[in-house]
């Protein structure tokens, strides 16, 4: 076979449905007349075409059976209302980020003050280290406290954070690695900054910009303040392509501008379209695409990396982790599954090593051989990621020292639990990335849970490990695990759901005495207050019962035999009904108890 045969066969495969090659291209016909091999090849293709038609036709009775079975199954099910589904979906996918806490940490790190000079937007450094490059200059100069920054200057924060205030009173907090240009022009009364990379939090007061015209711009879009405090973050290679879940095609990682609004509102503009992002939610701008707001945006923002919002002994580890994760996304984008698998393997090893150390501490054997092995393993994983060995040892010591300061078993239990979950999700991601495109769909599923636990790192008491866990923190943990359990309980053989529900139970056990104690202190007041407290105690008890029920159900599901082999229709009905009436009802009962609990708690606190 020569090159010409190869090209003819390509065309044959394209036109095989047309019957004879002469109908499509005389050249093909000429070739097949002369070349016996290609003629046979064409006959083979045509034969395959007929076989495939026959195969599709042979499944017609299956299609008919399928149609009638589905109709019969639907007849027996109560119709889901639009509200049911939307609420549930929003509950699963649209969890809010703990950005406010992260922003508060950043705001505490340093202050830069911009001073006004006529209508120029200028700045003056008060603290923190900012490198500045003048417009059309290639040299960077460090600006120390008291030095002014002019319009057109580019600002870069190397390490640590800096907070700046523009002449109009707008306060900007820049994280390490952030680069932006102060773009306010003399002729333009509007102030704006152009964000190249990194994370910046803007606090705009109504006083400073009565017209609400402050904006942060980027290559991907613009976020215009409507009198507010908001965070803008640029990120590359974000796993954005929603087609992944539909077709199993590889994702396209893109550069995005993610906006999270803490208070007030922001007008997000991209591709000539405008969307308003309200307090507590996020929006995403991607070039040439309509701004994305709502649950999809929340999910996207959640997949951004955690290290920039965590400061403490874990930071270097999270940085290494983020590097691997970024490498993982890049490899996926380049369709390089082997490289993706290597990165996923590193992530998995990292969490396994840290998790082992934490578990050794929990079981009271910090010097055990296992822990030594875990330390060594961790050092190796980190060294492979480009970290220096001596620095690594110090960092491991810092984590161990931090863990040892945990006074509250609740925090230690929480740390171990989160690490265990990270470890398992990382393992599943690693295994998924080893497979094919189908595996990648499962990777996407796991990433949501994985990122949910990633976020949790911002909530650990990094600055005060001796701190006791509050009732609110315990309840927040319950909510998190409920959401994960909701995602995972659909897989009866998945231990994650059971572990999450068990953890919820542990939390509730821990929360109950805390709540009772709080109530005992507060129940000395009026009759209404006592009544409220009594209702709360009852609710906590109901909550505990609901958890125990959910746990039993979860075990039952895990231990239950596979449904294969039973008549499918009854299995389907049972499964759908079970999902509605047992799992959902159970989880909804828990959630209702939690919601009421929170309402009552707020009432008690407000009466304090």
């Amino acid at each position, binding site marked *: 076979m020569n090159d010409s045969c190869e090209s003819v066969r390509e065309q044959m495969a394209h036109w*095989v449905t047309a019957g004879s090659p002469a109908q499509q291209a005389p050249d093909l016909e000429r070739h097949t007349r002369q070349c016996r091999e290609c003629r046979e*090849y064409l006959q083979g293709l045509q034969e395959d075409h007929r076989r495939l038609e026959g195969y599709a036709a042979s*499944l017609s009775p299956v299609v008919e059976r399928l*149609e009638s079975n589905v109709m019969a199954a639907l007849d027996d*099910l109560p119709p889901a209302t639009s509200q049911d*589904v939307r609420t549930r979906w929003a509950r699963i996918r649209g969890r809010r980020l703990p950005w406010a806490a992260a922003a508060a940490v950043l705001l505490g790190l340093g202050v830069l003050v911009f001073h006004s000079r006529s209508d120029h937007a200028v700045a003056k450094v008060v603290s923190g280290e900012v490198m500045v490059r003048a417009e059309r200059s290639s040299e960077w100069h460090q600006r120390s406290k008291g030095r002014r920054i002019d319009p057109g200057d580019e600002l870069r924060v190397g390490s640590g954070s800096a907070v700046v205030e523009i002449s109009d009173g707008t306060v900007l907090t820049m994280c390490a690695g952030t680069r932006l240009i102060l773009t306010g022009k003399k002729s333009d009364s509007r102030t704006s900054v152009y964000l190249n990379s990194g994370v910046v939090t803007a606090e705009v007061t109504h006083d400073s910009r009565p017209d609400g015209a402050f904006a942060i711009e980027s290559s991907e879009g613009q976020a215009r303040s409507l009198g507010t405090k908001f965070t803008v973050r640029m990120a590359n290679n974000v796993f954005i392509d929603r087609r992944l879940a539909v*077709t199993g095609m590889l994702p396209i990682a893109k550069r995005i501008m993610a906006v999270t609004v803490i208070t007030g509102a922001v007008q997000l503009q991209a591709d000539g379209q405008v969307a308003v992002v309200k307090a507590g939610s996020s929006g995403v701008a991607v070039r040439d695409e309509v701004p994305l707001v709502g649950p999809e945006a929340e999910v996207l923002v959640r997949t951004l990396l955690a290290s920039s919002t965590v400061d403490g002994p874990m930071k270097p580890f999270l940085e290494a982790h983020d590097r691997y994760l970024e490498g993982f996304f890049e490899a996926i984008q380049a369709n390089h599954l082997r490289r993706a698998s290597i990165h996923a393997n590193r992530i998995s090893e990292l969490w396994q090593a840290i998790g082992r150390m934490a578990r050794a501490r929990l079981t009271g054997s910090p010097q055990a051989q296992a822990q030594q092995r875990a330390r060594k393993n961790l050092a190796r994983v980190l060294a492979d990621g480009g970290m220096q060995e001596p620095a690594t040892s110090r960092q491991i010591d810092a984590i161990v020292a931090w863990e040892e300061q945990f006074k509250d078993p609740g925090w230690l239990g929480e740390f171990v639990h989160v690490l265990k979950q990270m470890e398992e999700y990382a393992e599943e991601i690693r295994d998924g990335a080893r497979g094919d495109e189908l595996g990648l769909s499962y990777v996407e599923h796991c990433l949501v849970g994985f990122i949910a636990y990633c976020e949790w790192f911002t909530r650990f008491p990094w600055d005060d490990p001796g701190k006791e866990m509050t009732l609110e923190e315990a309840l927040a943990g319950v909510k998190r695990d409920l959401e994960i359990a909701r995602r995972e309980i659909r897989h009866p053989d998945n231990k994650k759901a059971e572990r999450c529900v068990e953890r919820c139970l542990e939390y509730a056990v821990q929360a109950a005495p805390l709540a009772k104690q709080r109530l005992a202190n507060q129940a000395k007041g009026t009759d209404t207050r006592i009544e409220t407290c009594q209702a709360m105690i009852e609710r906590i008890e109901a909550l505990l019962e609901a958890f125990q029920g959910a746990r039993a159900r979860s075990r039952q599901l895990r231990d239950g035999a596979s449904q294969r082999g039973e008549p499918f229709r009854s299995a389907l009905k049972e499964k759908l009904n079970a999902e509605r009436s047992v799992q959902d009802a159970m989880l909804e009962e828990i959630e209702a108890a939690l919601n009421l609990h929170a309402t009552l708690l707020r009432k008690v606190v407000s009466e304090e």
Partner: protein
Amino acid sequence: MDARSEGELLAACRAGDQTACAALIKRHAQQVLAICVGMVTNAHDAEDVAQEALAQAFTRIPALRDPEQFGPWLARIARNACIDLLRRRTRERRVLAEQVRPDRSGLADTTGLERAIAQLPEKYRLALLLYYFDGQSTENVAKMLNLSPAGVSTRLSRARRELRKLLTEHGVAE
């Protein structure tokens, strides 16, 4: 065949019109089955999982925001149901010996063909099966897979060449 447009059928189905639901199921059952056959590569399992996916989809119809996206949305649900099944199967395989497949009476004797299809890369397999199950229209396949018709044609021609190679290797072709 119900003459109403897909958007009208969806609206009616949301409002509880069973005939509209039946018409939608009739329109899409074949596509869903094609996806399931393409994913789980076994007609018996595919039927089970397609049934599960369709039932799930029709109980979740109120969650669908854009009626234009019904096809891709349904495809996504079918894929997810298949992924669930494949995960269960992988786990079961760890503890159980491979189960004897049930008798698939009524189906054409296509063992060699099925085996070869199962060995195709997934992206080719899906395109090929959707094409033959769904009236041989590249436009329909393109819509379901979020691809361009030209992209579908390319996948189809590669799938055919790959299939030819596999069938020849298996000795089924002659």
